[in-house]
């Protein structure tokens, strides 16, 4: 009986994470279209509902009622399985994300490593989608995506190792606690290059502009999801935006002090709160949109050069510096 109650309670808690997440995933594309619109001195979507606020609902309806086509020569099982793999990886990683001291689904000791492991599974969805579609464009797209994700996972991993060395823990909650004590105890300050590299690698990991050669409309049409339509395409889309939010969440937890306030010590503003966390996440999401409106697409060999020859050496050098600070006891944050 108590087992049953535990299961139901866990499902309720999962819902409490998933429902707000999926709602933000639905409205993030609207925010993207609006913000990029304003950056380009346009208005953006404004037809459905007041100022276009109901646009995501209209989009969802359209995608739901479209036919799901499966190409005749595709591998049907894998073709339909790959979007599921993508979204499972994108949502599964949220299990260990803490939202405040008490609000955490699973306070796992290896939380950060778990997030890395689960989000690295997402690449299977993309590879299998490209392969199962049995189309040259899709296959080229998934090949590009795989090579890019493998390359940038390394620099991202090294940047995260810097954080782990600094905090002395793999638990996301403890990493936030290690940054307590004001703006300059947050890890963005001692690890600024790691933050920059982490976020750029994360943009490359999520296949967003300016690293979206996997979709490259001008040369490979739409890349790995070319053959998908209706809901099967929408699931890829949802997974991409859920991943964007996840990566922004990680960046704010690991480098910007999570739910800690920038005004520590001030009476009301200094309280740690989930609103600070959401504010920081929104900042990183804005950066994503800003990049997309600003930068032209990278050329493929330049992406590879940036990942392997620039980012990895910088992260290794900075890792040594952080290690030296921690070992000599000169680290000013709470090791």
């Amino acid at each position, binding site marked *: 009986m108590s087992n049953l109650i535990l299961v139901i309670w866990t499902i309720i808690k999962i819902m409490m994470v998933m429902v707000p997440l999926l709602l933000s995933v639905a409205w993030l594309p609207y925010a993207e279209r609006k913000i990029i619109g304003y950056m380009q001195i346009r208005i953006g979507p404004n037809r459905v509902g007041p100022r276009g606020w109901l646009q995501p609902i209209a989009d969802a309806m359209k995608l739901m009622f479209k036919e799901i086509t499966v190409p005749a020569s595709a591998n049907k099982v894998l073709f339909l399985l790959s979007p599921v793999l993508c979204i499972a990886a994108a949502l599964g990683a949220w299990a260990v994300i803490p939202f405040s001291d008490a609000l955490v689904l699973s306070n*796992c000791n290896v939380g950060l490593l778990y997030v890395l492991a*689960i989000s690295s599974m997402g690449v299977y969805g993309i590879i299998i989608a490209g392969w199962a579609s049995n189309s040259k464009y899709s296959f080229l797209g998934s090949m590009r995506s795989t090579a890019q994700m493998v390359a940038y996972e390394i620099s991202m991993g090294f940047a995260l190792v810097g954080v782990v060395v600094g905090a002395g823990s793999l638990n996301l909650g403890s990493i936030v606690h290690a940054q307590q004590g004001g703006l300059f105890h947050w890890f963005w300050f001692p690890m600024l290059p790691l933050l920059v590299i982490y976020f750029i690698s994360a943009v490359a990991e999520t296949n967003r502009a300016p690293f979206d050669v996997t979709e490259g409309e001008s040369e490979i049409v739409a890349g790995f999801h070319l053959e998908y339509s209706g809901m099967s395409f929408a699931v890829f889309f949802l997974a991409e935006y859920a991943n964007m939010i996840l990566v922004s969440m990680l960046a704010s937890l690991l480098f910007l002090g999570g739910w800690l306030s920038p005004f520590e010590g001030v009476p009301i503003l200094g309280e740690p709160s989930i609103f600070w966390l959401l504010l920081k996440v929104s900042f990183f999401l804005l950066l994503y949109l800003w990049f997309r409106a600003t930068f032209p697409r990278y050329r493929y060999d330049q992406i590879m050069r940036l990942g392997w020859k620039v980012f990895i050496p910088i992260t290794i050098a900075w890792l040594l510096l952080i290690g030296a600070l921690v070992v000599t006891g000169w680290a000013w944050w709470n090791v």
Partner: protein
Amino acid sequence: MESFLFYLFSTILLVAATAVITVRHTVRAALSLVLVFFTSAALWVLLEAEFLAVTLVVVYVGAVMVLFLFVVMMIDTNTTVLREGFTKYLPLGVLVAVTMAAEMFLALGSPGFGGMAAPAPHPASYNNVAELGSILYTQYVYPFELASVILLVAIIAAIALTFRRRPGTKYQDPARQVSVRRADCVRLVQMPAARKTPAP
């Protein structure tokens, strides 16, 4: 509950492991291998070895198998050629299989594996990552460093074996591209304005 999960994961693991060697299609075999790694990680989580389990997923599922699939998808395997000479190699294969089975019986039947009780559950505050780290970097530091050096040698050897400089290839040097100045590319030429010749 725990034994139910154990048998569930073990069944999935055995079915997937069988599929790896029986499925004819190479991509499906590789995907089954991914499932094998993932379920064995799940079994390790049941044994409270969550660090090792997650590392297994990061290394094998996230990195090794991705590259493996990458290669398997690129090459076109001809299964009829692969199955040629099945009867010729059968006796040797049976011999190897029987030897391995016998060795595993001997090893797993030894008293060390026999009566091991399930580990007592640890309190929620127990951190096996810290335990593992402290043992790895104190008691076993030399074997650990030695293993990493061997891996480094293997990495360098793999690069050295495949790295060959082709003579005619053109490379871009981004440092030189960035340092280009206007004077290197544009020459301003002063010319007197052409005068319209008056019509005759």
